[in-house]
């Protein structure tokens, strides 16, 4: 009797707890969905409305009267759109292939081998990420122009009958590939770092060669990271304007983003058509994301389990000098050459270089571009604003992405699939078009969001949410459930488990995503263009001003300033994070 009663009380108690937990989950999902609606759904709907009408939703009111699919039909019937789409797919496809090959190779070299000076290679290989695409485009046009490119000038000087032409689709593929290799590197290296090497050891004990182990064990195990990195770099390339704008313009080679930019920049501007092209771009991306989920679903990729391990380095023997050589070539092509081009442009009075000898004509060099940019009061203002926006975006966006990523991958709450889908939506909307959508959507909000730094930060958080959530997802997918279960068994609640288990284990991923977010926010141009006002101008907008003002010298000088600034900030943050993180993870696992 007594026993029965106590059991009944227990059941009722656990029932009450269950209800409470369910209510909490419901509230949590509702909260996330509300945030996502504000950040994503509402602006995308304004965009869709723009694509389906010929009106500006703010000017003409949100009306459904002029609804038609004329814009879509015009766009679909235009052979130039088809051509731009084809160019886009070739450039991004080819670029992704190169980026994955290079990124994967270098994350393996850096994380898993005893290649000399690999720390230095690792640090330097991230540098291209700091340079805005526009700057990368400018640097490669200085290097690879068929007529005035420094590479061709040097070939001629060396008496070689070689010739490069980066004003071509293949030039675009190459620059995309090397420029986004660090992107893939960032994903795959953190996965490799977190991987328990015992599986590899097992393969080797069973007689597999190092090479066979790499392809049959290591790479398949970090497949989520590879696929995420691949997909993301493809998608990010889809949305890049700067590189194709600089390299494609001289031969009238259009990709979808440059096409959209043209539409918004024409006189009169055709935003509604641009919105229609953007929706097509979104559909392509949607398809890709679906594909990724199909490929990854139903498999287990947990490589971090509740067992301590020591990351091990493969002893390459004399071959380590080959990997070192590869590292040097990579650095030379990806970092040193473009940086040299920018340095020459920043310090040279004019970029007319007749021959190799004139490259070393010292009276041609001066600090005039630096004087000139720091004479401009907007320069310091824009740096301050950009850093402020970058920090807000990284912190708030990082926290939101963590919440979303955790909900999607570590819980079974209803509605998590919708959260996944919505948070992925903004991925392929070109910044320029989503910039207009944010302007349309948020300008009317009472309380004066418009004209503040927050409207920029919110736009960046929304725009880069897919990148951040995906970057974090790889970390979540790797952590075995048994670790969390262990914490629950020990009486930790959900938040306690997150704080003591998930967060510390996912730390490299969290830091990498926040760093990524910071860099992306500082570089982002498209959506800033519409949202900045006179006292919230950011660096990227000023950089475009310099470029559009026909000042390659000032553009280069300012981008050097930006690169150095980002390098110092991120280097500092990483150093801090690493020194505080060391030991703490090991401690917790112990």
């Amino acid at each position, binding site marked *: 009797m007594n026993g029965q009663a106590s059991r009944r009380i227990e059941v009722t108690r656990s029932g009450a707890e269950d209800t409470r937990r369910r209510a909490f989950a419901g509230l949590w999902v509702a909260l996330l969905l509300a945030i996502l609606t504000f950040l994503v759904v509402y602006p995308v709907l304004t965009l869709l409305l723009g694509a389906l009408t010929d009106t500006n939703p703010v000017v003409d009111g949100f009306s459904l009267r002029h609804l038609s699919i004329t814009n879509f039909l015009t766009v679909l019937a235009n052979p130039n759109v088809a051509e731009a789409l084809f160019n886009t797919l070739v450039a991004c496809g080819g670029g992704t292939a190169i980026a994955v090959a290079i990124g994967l190779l270098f994350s393996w070299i850096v994380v898993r081998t005893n290649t000399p000076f690999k720390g230095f290679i690792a640090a330097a290989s991230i540098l291209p990420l700091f340079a805005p695409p526009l700057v990368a485009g400018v640097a490669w046009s200085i290097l690879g122009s068929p007529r005035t490119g420094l590479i061709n000038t040097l070939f001629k000087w060396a008496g070689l009958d070689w010739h490069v032409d980066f004003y071509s689709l293949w030039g675009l593929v190459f620059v995309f590939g090397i420029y986004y290799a660090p992107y893939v590197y960032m994903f795959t290296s953190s996965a490799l770092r977190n991987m328990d090497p015992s599986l590899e050891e097992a393969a080797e004990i069973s007689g597999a060669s190092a090479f066979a182990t790499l392809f049959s064990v290591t790479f398949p195990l970090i497949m989520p990271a590879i696929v995420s990195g691949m997909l993301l770099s493809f998608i990010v390339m889809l949305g890049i304007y700067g590189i194709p704008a600089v390299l494609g313009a001289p031969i009238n080679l259009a990709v979808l983003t440059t096409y959209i930019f043209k539409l918004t920049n024409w006189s009169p501007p055709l935003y509604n058509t641009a919105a229609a092209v953007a929706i097509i771009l979104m559909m392509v991306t949607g398809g890709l994301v679906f594909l990724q989920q199909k490929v990854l679903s139903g498999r287990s990729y947990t490589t971090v389990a509740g067992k301590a391990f020591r990351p091990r380095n493969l002893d390459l023997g004399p071959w380590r000098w080959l990997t070192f050589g590869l590292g040097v070539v990579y650095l030379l092509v990806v970092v040193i050459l473009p940086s040299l081009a920018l340095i020459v442009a920043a310090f040279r009075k004019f970029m007319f270089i007749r021959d190799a000898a004139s490259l070393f004509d010292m009276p041609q060099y001066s600090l005039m571009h630096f004087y000139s940019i720091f004479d401009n009061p907007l320069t310091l203002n824009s740096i301050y604003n950009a850093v402020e926006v970058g920090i807000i975006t990284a912190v708030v966006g990082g926290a939101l992405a963590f919440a979303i990523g955790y909900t999607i991958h570590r819980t079974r709450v209803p509605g998590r699939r919708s959260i996944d889908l919505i948070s992925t939506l903004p991925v392929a909307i070109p910044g320029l078009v989503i910039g207009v959508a944010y302007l349309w959507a948020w*300008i009317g909000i009472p309380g004066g969001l418009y004209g503040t730094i927050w409207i920029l930060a919110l736009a960046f958080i929304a725009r880069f949410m897919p990148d951040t959530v995906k970057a974090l997802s790889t970390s979540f997918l790797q952590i075995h459930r048994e670790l969390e279960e262990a914490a629950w068994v020990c009486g930790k609640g959900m938040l306690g488990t997150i704080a003591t288990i998930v967060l510390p284990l996912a730390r490299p991923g969290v830091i990498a995503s926040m760093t990524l977010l910071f860099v992306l926010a500082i570089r982002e141009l498209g959506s800033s263009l519409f949202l900045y006002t006179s006292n919230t101008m950011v660096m990227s907008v000023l950089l475009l001003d310099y470029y559009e003002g026909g000042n390659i010298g000032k553009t280069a000088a300012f981008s050097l300033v930006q690169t150095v600034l980002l390098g110092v900030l991120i280097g500092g943050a990483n150093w801090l994070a690493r020194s505080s993180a060391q030991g703490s993870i090991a401690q917790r696992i112990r």
Partner: protein
Amino acid sequence: MVARIAKMLAVAVIAGLGIALSGAPASAQAEFGSPELIAAAKAEGKLVYYTANFAEIEQLVIKEFNKRFPEIKVEMVRAPGGQLITRVRTEAAAGKLIADIVDHSDRALMLPLVDLFQDYAPPNAADYNPEALISPKLWPRATIAWAIGYNSELVKNPPKSWMDLTKPEYDKMIGQVFAQSGGTTWTRIMFERQVLGEDYWAKQAATHPVLYPSGAPMADALVRGEIAIGPLLYNVIYQKQRDGAPIKIFFPPEGSPVNPYASGIPKTAAHPNAAKLFLNWCLSKEGQTFMIKELGNLTSLKVPPAYPEGFDPKVVKVWYPNFDQYVKLHGPWVAEWDKTFGYRQ
């Protein structure tokens, strides 16, 4: 006695000088507005300036204005033409137009928005060429002109006229800004067809020009030697020439198409007096002279106070487009231009 007269004279001269000296700034400032306006502008202390012109060029203008009126801070928002119009329309519709001045290169895009603007005319309104005005509310703050530039290191036999740009010897050496890029380029395209001949485009296209989205990157390409020759806005290339870049620039004898801007003060301006003072200064003889001499602009004043370097009014005729045609011909002519030059939309 003589000494006393001399002393009195001296006192009178000194006093007179004193009056003249103390009066000088006041009368000079009067050119830009009444003392009440100036006082009200100084009390406002700032203005927000939306412009489609290049930020750097406008920084120089603001700096010069601040030499006169250091108390007034000019905050600038710069965007390319199409984007600027979208921003202005959207902000205005949401009741959040921040601009105290909107300054735009494409008058055809500004005209439909004329109701947003308040009545405004500078003190020297009567001195302006009526051809340059599309509305009594919108003023040609800047007037910019087309010229031809070439890289003097690359071109040994330079062109001397617009017609020379059709010569086969310049095959693949010329750059051009495409027609759809905005008001200034459209003015040039109109000029080419109406003044240089119906077949000018086709002849020019036969030299396979490289097409650029905007004049400034093209000017940079000219300096670098990516292209060797091209029609360019004088103010875009003038600074580079002055700084010593290997380029030469000239106004062709067939005429120089000019594009007057349209600048006005929105009804919602939060700093209307500062805005008026800034526009008054820009439109004054002093402001226009500065823009001509330092930036390489022309002016829409009936009697130009100066000419840019290399501009001989006896040789070069300025060419204003007929505004009706400027609006009506735009669509069909740009489409034809795109076809002629193989520019894909």
